[in-house]
């Protein structure tokens, strides 16, 4: 396997200090590297099962991925037609968002307790591969009717321990009646690793709680003083024509032009604050005339904000995977009445947004949101639902299914998948609803459990 971008490195931008020389290697290593990563360098795979694969009943069956739409790191031996275990070896360490979709072509009718699900069999940090289901839905009781579902999950994966991903289908339909109609399997590198990996030398991600909005660099020619009558010696603020590139912690050159002192009273002052075009500065030693030139160098503070912080944020944006740690009893209720899913523990929560099963959005923007509730099932006909509530408002529903498993209670997993625009401080809660006429438990085994996944996408 090879990177599609030669020399691509894990983002680890330097912290700039006053006096550092802005060299080409430094710019390439920070900005150029991040751009390479974002444009096309992040490992990503989109693969396709073209159908007619017979699954093993009641056992997660690795999907044979026969068409590689995208495999930009050229992971070898991945696409293997006819082999029910296409395995993708992780080429680069980091956080991966994975999805799977699959539908089965069934032939028989009477699927009174039939389920069709997908999931992920993943070895993480050198451990044994573990199966974790995604969506798992009931079919209708009609012959020759497909059944299909989707799932998503978030993993921290380590290329130094040769971690692997396998996408699986899962059904209790017997062989001969459970051929895949089609399936999709994807994995996307979304962030630097979180913590605690074996052999991986780093870097791990750095949280930037208040990411900057990208800004223009200072103009080469600088700006000029617009205070009427100029500023006096001892002044602690100055108004300039153009504040582009001026940041707190930076430096201004008063009566400096083209890197040269314009007058014997030229001086450098530190920027202590900025509001519009009014800049708070350390007290000047000299007076400076209106229209006097002001040099705006590319300061260490500027680069630390608009290069270092921005790179750190883009390489390590907010993400969450919270899994339910114990079974929860959900009362029977009429949809859309619902119960919050609790006992969610943060497996990965880099911005520490999860508390008491509620995720507080750390940074405004759009987020991919995936939630699933894994139900124990009921022998009675039942409606099962999963939804998301923002700020305690009306629940936004993602999956509402009907199961009629009179042959016996069968577990199902209803899922929610959307991209939401959220504001910092919004609270996210996951809800489940069922109307079996009696309490129903959620499942919390390793393979079958409820979870909430969120990944920041964009401002």
């Amino acid at each position, binding site marked *: 396997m090879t990177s599609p971008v030669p020399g691509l490195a894990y983002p680890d931008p330097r912290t700039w200090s006053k006096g550092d020389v802005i060299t080409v290697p430094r710019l390439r290593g920070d*900005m150029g590297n991040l*751009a390479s990563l974002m444009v096309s360098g992040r490992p990503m795979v989109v693969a396709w099962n073209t159908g007619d694969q017979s699954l093993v009943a009641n056992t997660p069956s690795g999907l044979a991925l026969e068409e590689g739409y995208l495999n930009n790191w050229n992971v070898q031996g991945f696409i293997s037609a006819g082999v029910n275990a296409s395995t993708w070896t992780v080429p680069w360490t980091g956080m991966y968002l994975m999805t799977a979709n699959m539908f089965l072509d069934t032939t028989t009718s009477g699927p009174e307790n039939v389920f069709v699900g997908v999931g992920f069999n993943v070895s993480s940090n050198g451990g044994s591969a573990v199966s974790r289901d995604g969506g798992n839905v009931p079919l209708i009781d009609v012959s020759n009717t497909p059944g299909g579902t*989707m799932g998503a999950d978030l993993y921290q994966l380590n290329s130094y321990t040769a971690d692997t991903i396998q996408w699986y289908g899962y059904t209790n339909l017997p062989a001969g009646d459970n051929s895949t109609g089609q399936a999709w399997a994807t994995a996307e590198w979304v962030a630097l690793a979180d913590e605690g990996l074996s052999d991986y030398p780093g870097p791990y991600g750095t949280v930037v709680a208040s990411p900057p909005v990208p800004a223009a660099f200072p103009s080469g020619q600088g700006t000029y003083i617009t205070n009427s009558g100029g500023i006096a010696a001892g002044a602690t603020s100055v108004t300039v024509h153009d504040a582009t590139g001026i940041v707190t912690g930076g430096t201004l050159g008063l009566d400096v032009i083209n890197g040269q002192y314009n007058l014997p009273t030229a001086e450098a002052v530190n920027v202590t604050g900025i509001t519009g075009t009014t800049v708070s500065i350390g007290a000047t030693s000299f007076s400076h005339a209106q229209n006097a030139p002001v040099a705006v160098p590319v300061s260490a503070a500027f680069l630390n904000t608009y290069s270092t912080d921005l790179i750190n944020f883009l390489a390590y944006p907010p993400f969450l995977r919270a899994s339910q740690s114990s079974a929860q009893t959900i009362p029977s209720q009429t949809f859309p009445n619902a119960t919050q899913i609790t006992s969610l523990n943060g497996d990965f929560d880099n911005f520490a947004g999860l508390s008491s099963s509620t995720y507080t959005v750390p940074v405004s923007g759009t987020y991919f949101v995936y939630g699933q509730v894994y139900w124990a099932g009921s022998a009675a006909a039942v409606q099962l639902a999963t939804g998301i509530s923002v700020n305690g408002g009306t629940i936004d529903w993602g999956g509402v299914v009907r199961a009629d498993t009179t042959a016996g209670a069968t577990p199902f997993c209803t899922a929610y998948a959307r991209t939401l625009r959220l504001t910092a401080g919004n609270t996210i809660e996951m809800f489940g609803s069922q109307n079996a006429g009696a309490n129903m438990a959620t499942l919390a085994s390793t393979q079958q459990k409820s979870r909430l996944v969120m990944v920041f996408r964009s401002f």
Partner: protein
Amino acid sequence: MTTPSVPDFIAGYAPQQPDFQSYWTGPSTFFADRIIARVSQQSSTTSIPDSGTATTILFDTVLEDPYSGWDASTHSWVAPAGYSGWYMATLRVAVTGASANTALSLQFSTSYQTYPNLVYQAIPGEGVASVSQYVYLIGGQDGIAGLAAIHNSGSALSTVTTTGLYPAMEVVWIMS
């Protein structure tokens, strides 16, 4: 405009502000503020026949579309010219009035490919499904639409306009 290219920091060259605009400010703005479109159907409904035929959801509300890719005539979103690449699409559809043995399936359709039966599940009277899928879109050419099909309901079903249930589709740029 096009998808940002990797900046070529040239040794021995003294870049000016416009250079840094193309080197970094422009690309980082693009990466931080990705192409996104979010549409929904909140003021009308889509009737989906009981034939199992995938029916385009008639989204009527553009929540955000800064690159003006929404085509109201085809009810699809076209990737902006110059921005070919991989996008993640998400779709949620709810229908009401289903009988006891009805299924709802969702799919995406682009100009060059359909993604059928991404979910296909039994639903109650008020059934909901949602799905995500990565799709490759050619900038300026490729539109993506969200579709739903109803199976075995005995009659056509309509989507709903209720908050929390109305059809919605989102498309966000992932990578070139």
